[in-house]
Structure formats: C-alpha cells, structure tokens
C-alpha cells in the first residue's frame, strides 16, 4: 500500500510557557511512499523524522496536512484503526508477558470481522515467530532475552497482525555493532519477504543507505532531499545533505569562483564553468582525491591510516573548514607523507559547490582541469 503525505505539518506548543515560542517539528512534508518499498527517514536528532513516523502511525495528529494510505484519508483515524505495525527504539515489550503473549497481544485486540479463533491466533504467532527466528523462545519473559532477541520479538509483534504498513523507530540503535549489521540485513529480508510498505527512522546514514529503497533526509522539520540512496549520495541537494551522508564525511573547504575557475585559497583546482563568481563552500568526498604529483591541491600530510585495500591520508589545508582533510586512495598508489606535502587532483563528479549563504548546491559543467 502506498502512503501519501500531503503538506504534513506538526507544530508543538512551546514547553517554556514564558517564551511562548512554538516549535515546528515537521514543516510541510509532501511525499508519496510507493507500495512495498522500504523508506529510510534520515536526519540528526530533532529533525522531525520520529514525529513524521508518529504521525503516520496516528500516535500524533498533524497540525495540518493529510495522510493517505492508498486512496483512504487516514488523517483522522486513530492508531488502533490504521492497521499498522510499529517497532520502538527500546522495543516496548510488555515485561509481564511471555514472548508468546506479547506476540499474541495485538491479535487479541482485533474486533469484528477480523476476529480470529484461538488456533488461528496461535498459528499466526508461530508464523511471525518463525519469520524472525525466535520460535524457540516463546515461553520466555522479555527480561530473559538478549537485546537482539528482544528486537526480533518486537518485530514479530509488529508483523503478526499483517499490517499494511510497518514503521520502525530507530530499531537498531540499542544493539551492538555486529548485531546491528546482522539485524538490518534481517529487516531487509523480512521486508522483502512480506512486501510490506515500511518506513524506517534512523540517524545513522550508513544504516539508511544500506537497506532503504529510498531515503528522505530531514533537517529541522524540513525535508532536504528524497531519492534513492546512491542518487542522494552522488547528487546532494545541499551542503547539509552532503555533509550528513558518507563515511568518512565529506571534506569542506572555503573556496571562491573567479571566471569559471574554482580556487581553494590561491590554488586553482577545477574549472567550473557555469558557476557564478563569488565565495562558495566546496565539498570534496574523501574518495574524490587522486594522488597526483602535478595535482593542483597541495596538503600537508600528518598521518596515513591503512584500511586494507585503501589508505586514508589525513592532512591539513589552509582553506579547509575542518581541522583535517581526509582522503581515501588506493593503497597501491603509494602515498608518501615523508616529503611534507602531498598533491592531489580532484575527480570532478566528487566535488560539489554550495552557496555560502543558503548552502544550496551550485551546479556547474565539468571541464577538463588545467
């Protein structure tokens, strides 16, 4: 089932009564989530991604705007009647119930024509448990399970009533690194198997990129960019998105464009025809550097970190906004930091220009440098 968000806005009254300022948690969100896809809602904390999720779930009511499931307007529908599954960050398992009781709980609440017999319920619960591979643990209490197991129970509980929409609120943040990797594959697998439209909230861009069909990057309640993970990475709409995606993060320099030529400090690094003259922020992905003795960009290297196939060179540059410039280059290209300077040339499609004021991307046509 597709989900349509139309001009979705959420305004919270200010907590501090004296100042009386309102907080706009989500501002005019428009998006259509295609049926059967997994969407990652991505952004730093406080960006409104959880609020969006809660509005989809019905736990919070939008201040304005509409939500559609398929063609049905569900904006006024209460959570109980939306037929969604939601997995909470800390799982929210009922501590006094066994795993089985936890999974059965949503089924016992079904009413009317959806009502199931005891056997049907048990079958469904078994099936859900099998899907998340916890069918051995049905008689345990949540406190007797590990974090990963609890997470699976929470997913099973969300899936058991066969929701049209599955919502996941930071589902992996309480797990350790290995388990996180494993579980996100699991989630991807389950989503594929069930084909449920899924919305996934996370602040971890890597997580979002790795499993989402599409990601939505948000900041301060405003959607920054929507697209397939790779597209967003390769073509960030603004400095924020560029900075937010990618590990190691993008390197940002102060630069200026003069007559179609991009300068970092006094070094002319790239022809950027079409870009207007003026000061700009320049983002260069770590993998956008090429070791090149004749390259236009010279940095003072501090350290080389060997990462196996690649090496990461940490250096400084006077025009860099961050203290360090990090480049990732092929280990074979033999970075030598003993000389005191290292010179790079830049892959043009890994370099982005942004407006100093607005942070908006400034497009340019790639020309041969030199």
């Amino acid at each position: 089932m597709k989900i349509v968000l139309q001009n979705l806005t959420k305004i919270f009254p200010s907590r501090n009564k004296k100042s009386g300022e309102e907080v706009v948690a989500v501002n005019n969100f428009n998006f259509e989530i295609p049926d059967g896809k997994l969407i990652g809602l991505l952004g730093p904390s406080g960006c409104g991604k959880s609020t969006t999720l809660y509005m989809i779930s019905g736990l919070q009511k939008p201040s304005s705007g509409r939500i559609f499931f398929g063609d049905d307007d569900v904006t006024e529908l209460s959570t109980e009647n939306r037929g969604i599954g939601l997995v909470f960050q800390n799982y929210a398992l009922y501590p006094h119930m066994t795993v089985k009781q936890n999974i059965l709980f949503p089924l016992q609440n079904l009413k009317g024509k959806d009502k199931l017999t005891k056997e049907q319920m048990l079958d469904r619960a078994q099936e859900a448990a099998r899907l998340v591979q916890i069918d051995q643990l049905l008689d345990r209490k949540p406190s007797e399970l590990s974090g990963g197991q609890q997470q699976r129970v929470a997913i099973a509980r969300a899936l058991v009533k066969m929701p049209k929409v599955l919502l996941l609120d930071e589902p992996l943040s309480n797990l350790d690194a290995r388990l996180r990797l494993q579980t996100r594959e699991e989630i991807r697998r389950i989503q594929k198997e069930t084909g449920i439209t899924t919305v996934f909230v996370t602040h971890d861009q890597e997580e979002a990129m790795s499993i989402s069909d599409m990601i939505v990057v948000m900041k301060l309640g405003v959607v920054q960019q929507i697209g397939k993970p790779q597209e967003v990475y390769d073509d960030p709409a603004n400095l924020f998105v560029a900075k937010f995606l990618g590990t190691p993060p993008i390197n940002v320099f102060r630069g200026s464009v003069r007559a179609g030529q991009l300068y970092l400090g006094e070094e002319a690094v790239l022809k950027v025809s079409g870009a207007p003259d003026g000061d700009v922020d320049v983002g260069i992905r770590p993998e956008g550097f090429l070791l090149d003795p004749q390259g236009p960009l010279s940095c003072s290297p501090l350290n080389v970190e060997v990462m196996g196939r690649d090496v990461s060179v940490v250096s400084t540059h006077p025009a860099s906004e961050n203290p360090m410039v990090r480049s990732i280059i092929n280990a074979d290209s033999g970075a030598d930091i003993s000389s005191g300077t290292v010179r790079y040339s830049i892959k043009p499609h890994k370099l982005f220009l942004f407006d100093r004021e607005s942070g908006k991307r400034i497009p340019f046509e790639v020309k041969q440098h030199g």
Partner: protein
Amino acid sequence: MTQKSMSVMHDRDLGKTSARQKAGKALVYFGIYAFLILMALIVLFPFYWMLISSVKSLEEYRLSTPTLWPRMILLGNYAEAFTTAALGRLFVNTLIVGVVSTILSLVITVLTAFAFARLEFKGKELLFAALLATMMIPGELFTITNYSTVTTFGWINTYTVLIVPFLVSVFYIYLLRQNFLQIPNELYLAAKVDGTSDWKYLWKVMVPLSLPTLISITILKMMGAWNSYIWPRLVANDEAHRLITNGLRNAFTDTTGDVNYPVQMAAVALVSLPLFLVFVFLRKYIMSGVSRSGIKG
C-alpha cells in the same frame, strides 16, 4: 633481581593491608550487627510486652512494679478474649468491610492514578496539587461534617457508611501515580499500535506491572479496616456491623469503666496475628511496592 624484590615487597605490603583490612572489616560488621540488633530489641520490646501482658492475671498486670516475665502464664486469657469479644462476628464484619472497601478503593485508585499519570486534561497539575494539599489538613475536622452528611444520607449502621467515605485515599493515588509514571511511555504507544483502548491498556498492562504497589495498597487498606476506631464507633456501633477494634474496646470494660488489659492484650495479639502473617508472607511485595513509588516527579 631488583624487580623481583620489589614485587615481593609489594606482595607483602598487600598482605599486610589486607590483613588489617580484614580485621577492620570484621570490626565494621560487628558494629553494624550490634547496632542493628540493639535497634531491633528496642523495636521488639513493646511486642514482647504485649505478649507477656496477654498471659498475665489482671492483678499481676496492675502491680506497681511490672514483672518482666509473668509469674503465671494464663493462656485462658486468649480463650476469654475470643468468647467475650465475640471475635468471630467481629472478624467477619471487619473482613467484609476490609475486602469490599479494598476492592472498590483499588478500582478508584487505579482509575484516578491512570488519569493523572497518562491522560491529558485541563487543570491536571492544579487538581493534583489540590489533592496533595488535602493531605495536610488535620483529618479530625472532617469527622464532624462527614457525620452529618452520612446521617442525611441515612447510612448510619450500614456497611456502606464504613466503606464509602474512605474509598478515596490521596496517598494511594499518589503512590500509584508515581508507579504508573515509571512505566515507559513506549508501552502505551505500543499498545495503541497493537489496537488496545486506554481501558484495556490500563487493566492489561499497567495494572499487572504495578502489582507490588497494588498489593501494598491492599495491605495498608486492610490494616486500616483492622485499626479504624473513631469513625466506626460513631457511625456503625451496632452488633451487626461493629468492627474489631471497637469490639475490643467495648468488650473488656468492666463495671468501673476499667479495662481488663491482659484479656484485651490477648485480643489485640489475636487480632494482629492475621496482619502479621500477611506481612511476613508478602513482605517482598510491600517492600517493592512502597519503595517503587519512587517519589520521583
């Protein structure tokens, strides 16, 4: 060589301190136990007194020099206590009042605490503060007015009058609300997603999770029924509805208005027994119930 001697020295040092530490630790524990046992004796003395008094003769009890061990153990006091006070009837009455008022009181407390802990409504904070403020008013003053109220309602000498006026306890509401507040909000949201109503969530999730608090409220309430005196005496002092403490006070008066204390003590001991047993067996719950109230917020 140097290294070795150093490490040896080090070891010896450790051994020394640990021996001293051990001695110190033993001393500390000795102190702790001595303190606790002394305090325990002080706490226990009145109970001891109650028990030995309950087997004394009235003459011995009235001696100007009290005896610390009864000269003669009169277990007959217990039999007398049971028959003269018609303890059977009193027990039944107290049990009826205790059980009914506990159940109703629990329901009301749960509903109210839920509203204060989970629901949003105008004036919530103000109302709660007002409730807490009522705890500061000397309760004796309520008696006069309440008495005329229940008389107007025609409730004198009924079980109703023993049960209804004290169903709402601000203290219990406070305890339970604190407990409810500590149940993570996510559970409530999860339950919403799982399709439960507030009502079902309250009884299926919050109540089971607050069981220790509810049990301690139950016990406190039962104890209240067991110990209540002034109000029952005023409003339901007929044979059919008399409660236990009242019965005790009345039954052992002899002609001079004096009280046959040993028999009364025996009766008090008899009456305390059920509460005592309940306490011993449910200590864990009472403990966690009261302490879990957590006092936060």
